[in-house]
Every structure is written in structure tokens, then in C-alpha cells.
């Protein structure tokens, strides 16, 4: 004879009130999870718009180009700083190259679009002979020299970068500009296939920069073909860019296709876009603030606290004479 199963103790019985609400609990739980996850994902993506995460792994050093001319570093150590160099990862993933994207990290993702060979640099204007040059010719003429320079961005951050290239003055002497050449204009590549954000109109393209001829002849002014011993990645201005270490970084035009000698001061891109904020000279000057932020200090990338910004980015000894008698608050 089997006993009938014992009924559960009354204490184990789920109260009818809770039992009838079990679906409600499950439903509320699901709605809580779904809503918070959706809201969280939406907020996260909205708030990181315009500042996408940079690539996690450092990009590999590009191989030396297989040109006819050997990629060999000759001289080094000119204008040495004795300051720690910024990491290759940071130099190549934190870039302002608006033609490749407006965020700091987007250029690193799209830099590969720039095809550095074949490349033609046109020499035009007030010069003995207008001509086109390729990159190998430049390396053959001038060799490769390493220069470690401070780079001070107008946005109040800075880096220390080991560039590879040759002095701009070497090229200028070789080209023999005429006596009417008072300014040099530098023009960046115009090609929406390689520089996709040229489809947008945040600035007028191509990007144009310029120097007074005596500034361009200063031994510090440099044309870079590489950094950290390797060819420039696209986001840093492959295959050839201007470096003017005593000026804000935006003066250093990237991916140059034309150097033009002219009598008049070139109309430069940023000074045209916002004339009250960016001047033609754009010398690093802690005493002349950007209208919207202070230029007295800067954050060195990789450091936590700010540093004092130095006049002419610490190159006053080499360049202050160029501006003797000029009101630098007016010619900013």
C-alpha cells in the first residue's frame, strides 16, 4: 500500500499574490535589462562620436621604400634636445589630418589610403626653372638626416619627434629662386580618393601653408620623409611634409605636392578659415593666447601635468632674430 504523497508544508507554498505576479517580475526584469543596455549603448556611442578609439596595437614600422636610392640615415644629433621622445604609437595615432578625418584617431585608421609612390613634387613660381621632382631624387640630392624636434600643437599639447629628412634650405638653394621670391607656399595633395574627408567642407582644400623666404631658409626648417627611422605613415604626412619646429604644428603642411615661390604672402588655410584665431606667422608664443584658450602651458603627450610653453617652442636662440622689431601680438 502506498501512502499518498505528503502535501508540502504550508510555509513552502508560494503566496498566491506573488505567484500571480511572477510574469510581471520577469517582464519588469527583462524591460529593465533591455532599457538600460540600449540606453547605455546609445549614450556611449553618442558621447564618443568624433573621438573614436585609436587602434590598440601600434602600427608596424613601414618598410624602407624599395626605391633606386638606398634608405640610409646619414647625419644625426643636430639641435639635440635631451628630452624623452614621444612613443611611436602616440605619434602615429594622435594626429590632426582633417583630410583623413576630424578625430585624432581616424587618420591612423585611414592613413593607408595615401599612396606614397609614385609621387611628384612640383616646383613653381619665382624660380630659375619650374620642374617636377620625385622622392628618390630628393633623397639622392640631400641624403637623410635625423632631427629630434619638439612639436607644439596650437591645441596646447606637444610631442618630441625624431624626424628623418633634409633641411628645407638645402632644397631652396638648389632650386635657385629669383630675387622676386619673398614667400614660399606649400600645398598639400588634393585627391578625395586618397584623402576621403576632402569631400567635406570643414576647411577649403587643398590645405595651403606658407613661410617668409628667410624663415624657410632658417637651418631649423625641415622637410621630413620619415620618423623613427622609417618612412612617414600616411597619417603623419607621407611621403613628404614640412616641419617648422618654432611654429604651431598646423604650419607643417603634409603630403606636399607643390612648393611655390611668390612675391605676395600666401593665403594660408587656417588663417583664411578663422583669421582672428590663426595668423600667418603662428610662432609658438606663451604670451599670445589663442582667443579661446591659453597658450601659456601645454600637455606633453605621455605626461600627466602641464609644462610651461617656451617662446618659439624653445628655439628662440635660432629664430628670434627673424622677428626683431615685429609686434608679435599683432603678427601672431
Amino acid at each position: 500500500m502506498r501512502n499518498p504523497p505528503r502535501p508540502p508544508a504550508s510555509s513552502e507554498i508560494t503566496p498566491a499574490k506573488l505567484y500571480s505576479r511572477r510574469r510581471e517580475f520577469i517582464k519588469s526584469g527583462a524591460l529593465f535589462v533591455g532599457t538600460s543596455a540600449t540606453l547605455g549603448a546609445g549614450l556611449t556611442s553618442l558621447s564618443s562620436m568624433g573621438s573614436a578609439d585609436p587602434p590598440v596595437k601600434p602600427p608596424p614600422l613601414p618598410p624602407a621604400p624599395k626605391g633606386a636610392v638606398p634608405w640610409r640615415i646619414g647625419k644625426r644629433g643636430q639641435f639635440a634636445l635631451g628630452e624623452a621622445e614621444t612613443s611611436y604609437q602616440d605619434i602615429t595615432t594622435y594626429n590632426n589630418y582633417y583630410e583623413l578625418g576630424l578625430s585624432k584617431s581616424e587618420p591612423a585608421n585611414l592613413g593607408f589610403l595615401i599612396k606614397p609612390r609614385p609621387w611628384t613634387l612640383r616646383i613653381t613660381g619665382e624660380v630659375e626653372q619650374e620642374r617636377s621632382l620625385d622622392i628618390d631624387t630628393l633623397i639622392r640630392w640631400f641624403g637623410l638626416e635625423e632631427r629630434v624636434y619638439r612639436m607644439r600643437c596650437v591645441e596646447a599639447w606637444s610631442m618630441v619627434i625624431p624626424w628623418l629628412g633634409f633641411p628645407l634650405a638645402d632644397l631652396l638653394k638648389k632650386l635657385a629662386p629669383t630675387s622676386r621670391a619673398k614667400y614660399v607656399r606649400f600645398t598639400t595633395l588634393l585627391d578625395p580618393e586618397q584623402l576621403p574627408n576632402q569631400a567635406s567642407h570643414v576647411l577649403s582644400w587643398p590645405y595651403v601653408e606658407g613661410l617668409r623666404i628667410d624663415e624657410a631658409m632658417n637651418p631649423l626648417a625641415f622637410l621630413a620623409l620619415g620618423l623613427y627611422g622609417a618612412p612617414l605613415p600616411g597619417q603623419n604626412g607621407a611621403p613628404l611634409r614640412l616641419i617648422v619646429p618654432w611654429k604651431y604644428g598646423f604650419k607643417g603642411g603634409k603630403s606636399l605636392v607643390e612648393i611655390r615661390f611668390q612675391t605676395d604672402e600666401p593665403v594660408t588655410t587656417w588663417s583664411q578659415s578663422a583669421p582672428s584665431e590663426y595668423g600667418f606667422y603662428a610662432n609658438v608664443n606663451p604670451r599670445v593666447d589663442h582667443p579661446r584658450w591659453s597658450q601659456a602651458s601645454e600637455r606633453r603627450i605621455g605626461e600627466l601635468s602641464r609644462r610651461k610653453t617656451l617662446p618659439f617652442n624653445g628655439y628662440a636662440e635660432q629664430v628670434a632674430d627673424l622677428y626683431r622689431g615685429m609686434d608679435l601680438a599683432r603678427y601672431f
Partner: protein
Amino acid sequence: MAKSKLPWLVPATIAGALIPFASIAWRLSQHRLGANPIATALNQIGLLSLIFLCASLSCTPLKIASTWNWPLRVRRTLGLCAFFSVVLHFLVYLVFDQSLALGALLLDVLKRPFIALGFVALILLLPLALTSSRRAVAQLGFRRWQRIHRLAYLIGILGVLHFYLRVKADHTQPIVYGSVLAFGFMLRGAAALKKFRDMRLRASVHGVRSESA
């Protein structure tokens, strides 16, 4: 009925609002905020503040434009999220960006319009956060409470201007957030106008009646 009370809504809003901050903290610990993590964190928290402000200010217009009541249930929560986000934005600026240099901060506030606007918005948010409880509504009386909380419109405008003035070349984002606010204000304005007309109409109807009586 419990169903209409949406008991999960406010907790879910709070949990969802915490996710982007957790994401920033996690990416910071993984060195994934890039070469200038302080600037990235500052910018993202600033943008979050503006998103919360716009979201909170869009609750009433959303209720007007729809028949939903739930937007009003999260309005206060979103407003408080905006407040905490603005405070965090300010703290990152003060502690990490300026290394607690109070002199530099004061100079910045006085000399730079965009920083001044942000600072004023932070100050104006304080009374709103302090009077956000039901008890405060009861103590102040609804009319007075409402008048204080209309400051939120001004704070939203200040937030958009603060962002607009900070951007270097591409003004798309500040314009988008400004448009969201402007659209909300338009809906409120239209609803207020309608209410005013209805009231006048009713008054005139009453007036006619009393004359004929």
C-alpha cells in the same frame, strides 16, 4: 495597476546612464583612450553632460507631442544625471587638466567666454539639483519651484554655446544638439500658446454668458 507605474523605468535609466561612465573608466584603465586620455575623457564627459541636459529638456516636449506619460517619469533622473556629469566634467578639468591650479582656473573663467559659459551653467545647476526632491516642491510651492526650474532652459542654451565655442572647425555636433533644444522649445511654445488661446476663449465665452445673464 503596477503595469502603468513602470517600476523598472527609473532604475533602468540610472543603470543605463552609468554605462558610458563605466566605459570611459574601463577604456582609461586599458590605455584605450588614446595618446591624450585626459582630453578624451574631458570631451566625452562634457558631451555626455550635454546629452543628458538635452534629454531631460526633451521630456516635456515629447509628452506634448505624444500621448505618453513616461517621459515625465524620467525627467528628474535625467536632469540629475546631467548635474552629476557636469560636476565630473568640471572635476576632470580642474584636477587633471589644470592640475588644481586655481589661479589658472580663475583666469580661464574670466578670460575665456566658453569656459565662463560652462562655469555659469554649472553654478546654475546647483539650485536645481538641490531642489529636485518632492519635498522641495512641497516646501517651495509648485509655482515657485517651477520658476526656479525654468533655469534649465538657460542652462541648456549655455551648454550648447559652450560646446559651439570650443569646437575648432566642424560645428555639426553643437548645431545638432542646439536644434534638438530649439525644436523642444518650439513645441513648448506652441503648447503654451494653445493653452493661452483656450483660456481666453473660455474667458470670453464666460464673459458673454455673464453679460447675457
